[in-house]
């Protein structure tokens, strides 16, 4: 590579980096509006989905009550457990995977949902669960004539069917074996008498049919089902009615991080110290080539932030932060392996450009192996149901790939860009020959 070409490429990469850094850290309102509507750009940092332990979220507190039809023999503790599991499933299926649901006192349930990026999300969580009431199937529009409860429903799913021209959205309700026997008989009787059967949540009607049930699954359609999202919301509303306890919302609102107020601020401070210290280290220990390594690490940061906010499954809780720290240190160690190897080769009397290329080649296998291990560990951890381990896994997985790219591809480019300016003088990189007094 010629000096001029190298200079041009460095200028181009610097501009790219500046744009990347601005896009990563600065949110702004676009200086123009379309049809009078102002649009806002949100930086990668602000788009990161944070867990409820380190980021703000939504708090919902419920009081759980036994339903009239449950006998005194029912174990309240196990009903509470089933309700908590049901709520967790509902939130996870709705995309709020970062939730903590715990029993609060004797009959309270506390839900903290993290990963709330804006006010719309918090409103969605609040309206999603609402104040669930029991799902019943009734022979009239009143719950008093109910012949079956949601206990006999095994699955409620939002589905769509398309004939290429038109898409129809519907909710499919699947009954348990016992539930199917009940509804088959009762619906046939009701229809024979010329009536309809109704589906109610508490006292609110959510559906009706004038046909007898003959299959284990029934489909519900509505003019309100305009897309899959609205259909899913409807399905979830029905699912809340299948919870074994009635829930009354006693408090809802936004809440600060679970690990303490302003947790993320402290984490940002530490991450900033880590980054600045690593930059200082590279420049002090390897001078000019250290500056190129620093340039490389800046690209790493931009890429890491971009992918952490862009990959849909990424949510960062404290374990995810630990994964970020581990991956960053591994990335620095990868560069150190390269530069220390080059230093050793230079000591033996080889020329600088040979040393730098040998340095990166010698560290290739170690670097790739370590990061493949990080990726494998990430995949295994990401498949685990525990939220903390999952966050750790997904973050490690994403950053493992970025590590490989920056340590092997980008660093190679950095070395090639640097060599036209200094092909021989090792002192400028703090490299010393064996036996030298310098």
């Amino acid at each position: 590579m010629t000096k001029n070409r190298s200079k041009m490429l460095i200028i181009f990469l610097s501009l790219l980096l500046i744009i990347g850094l601005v896009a990563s850290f600065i949110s702004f309102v676009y200086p123009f509006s379309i049809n009078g509507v102002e649009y806002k750009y949100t930086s990668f940092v602000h788009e990161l989905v944070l867990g409820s332990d380190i980021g703000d979220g939504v708090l919902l507190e419920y009081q759980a009550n036994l339903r009239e039809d449950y006998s005194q023999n029912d174990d309240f503790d196990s009903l509470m457990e089933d309700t908590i599991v049901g709520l967790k499933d509902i939130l996870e299926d709705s995309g709020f995977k970062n939730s903590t649901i715990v029993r609060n006192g004797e009959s309270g349930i506390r839900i903290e949902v993290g990963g709330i990026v804006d006010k719309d999300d918090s409103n969605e969580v609040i309206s999603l669960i609402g104040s669930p009431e029991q799902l019943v199937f009734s022979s009239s529009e009143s719950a008093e004539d109910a012949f079956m409860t949601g206990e006999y429903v095994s699955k409620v799913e939002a589905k769509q069917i398309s004939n290429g021209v038109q898409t129809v959205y519907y909710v499919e309700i699947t009954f348990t074996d016992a539930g199917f026997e009940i509804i088959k008989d009762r619906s046939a009787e009701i229809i024979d008498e010329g009536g309809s059967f109704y589906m109610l949540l508490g006292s609110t009607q959510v559906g009706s049919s004038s046909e007898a049930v003959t299959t284990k699954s029934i489909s519900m359609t509505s003019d309100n089902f305009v897309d899959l999202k609205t259909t899913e919301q409807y399905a979830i509303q029905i699912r809340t009615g299948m919870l074994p306890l009635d829930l009354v919302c006693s408090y809802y609102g936004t809440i600060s991080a679970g690990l303490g107020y302003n947790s993320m601020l402290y984490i940002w401070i530490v991450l900033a110290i880590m980054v600045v210290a690593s930059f200082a280290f590279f420049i002090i220990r390897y001078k000019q080539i250290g500056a190129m390594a620093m340039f490389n690490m800046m690209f790493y940061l931009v890429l890491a932030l971009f992918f952490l906010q862009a990959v849909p499954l990424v949510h960062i809780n404290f374990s995810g932060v630990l994964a970020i720290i581990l991956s960053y240190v591994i990335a620095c160690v990868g560069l150190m392996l390269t530069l220390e190897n080059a230093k050793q080769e230079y000591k033996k009397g080889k020329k600088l450009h040979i040393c730098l290329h040998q340095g990166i080649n010698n560290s290739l296998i170690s670097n790739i192996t370590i990061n493949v291990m990080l990726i494998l560990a990430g995949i295994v951890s990401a498949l685990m149901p525990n939220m903390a381990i999952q966050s750790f896994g997904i973050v490690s997985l994403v950053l493992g790939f970025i590590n490989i790219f920056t340590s092997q591809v980008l660093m190679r480019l950095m070395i090639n860009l640097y060599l036209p300016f200094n092909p021989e003088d090792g002192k400028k990189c703090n490299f010393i020959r064996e036996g030298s007094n310098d």
Partner: protein
Amino acid sequence: MINRDFSSSGKQYIKQNKFVLIALAVVVVMAIIMICTLGFNAGADVKGYRTFSINLSSVDKVDMSNYEKDISLALSSNDASLYSVQLAGEGEQSILIVKYMGEIKDEAKTNAEIANVLQINVEEISTHSKVSPSILAKDYIFTIACGLIIIALAVIFIAIRYNLACAITALVSSLLSVILLISLTAIFRLTVTSSFLAINIITILLVLCEGFILFDGLERTRDSLEDKNDRSTQLSKTLASEGFRQKFMYGAIFAIALILVFIAPSAIKRISLVALFAIVVAMFVTVYALPFLWSLTITQVSDKIRTKKDKKTKKAIENSATGELNNNYKEDQVIEVKEDNDLEESPSQDDNITID
């Protein structure tokens, strides 16, 4: 892969670092005793916690950092420790949610103290309630499974890429790191939270990564040295040569955890403290245990292979002497002996193979 150079450098390293064997034995025995006898200090998400809320509608300006300090003091004087303080709601609707560990005997007295330091009416403080843990038993099982799968994958990879001795070293080292971390957690009453599970996986990863760098470095050193007589000395040096990089890596993570211990809120402080210990464990295992275990395993494995070969060769020679073998078989044996000789360029006294 296992040849004379590795074996003799291993022996050399063991000779120079005999104290590691004693230290390892003592540490492992102590660790197992501690794990079996001492209990664990379970964190809020593992054991559950107690909570109460404070209505802040009468407060003009919410000062979270001072509130946290004052509430922490009030709780600690009543045999409880603060886990976290969260601000919920906005403006006049805002409430403070306090989570703490331990059980308070006199709730009214504690509430009065807190109301006094926060300068609010005691009526603004709700009754305390117990909150269930958010980590379930299955989470532990899955995490153990996760750790074991990671170790198994790494061990299989190392066995294929390097050799069996390296794989055994990686396996023992990673298990050792987990045992040590768990025992230190028990000894120092560190808090076990959901992040503790992730910290264990990080420790395993650090140890395995160091293993990769060590095994790769050893192979490269052996292949790059032309002077074969100097190989074992150089390899022995390589075993202890990653000093600067290791110091940098562990120093960096240690410093990060230390900063968090000093500046972060109490819940993060607890997790960071565990991370500090995890780094110490990973450092001990990678700096001392890993090269030592490799030396120990490599000498054992290569000795066993050599003993097997010796026996086989002797048997073949005996058979050929009694004339029980046909000519083709004799030729095979001769080739095998020749290959062995090629591999072992600098035979030492203890490896004499008699082919009379």
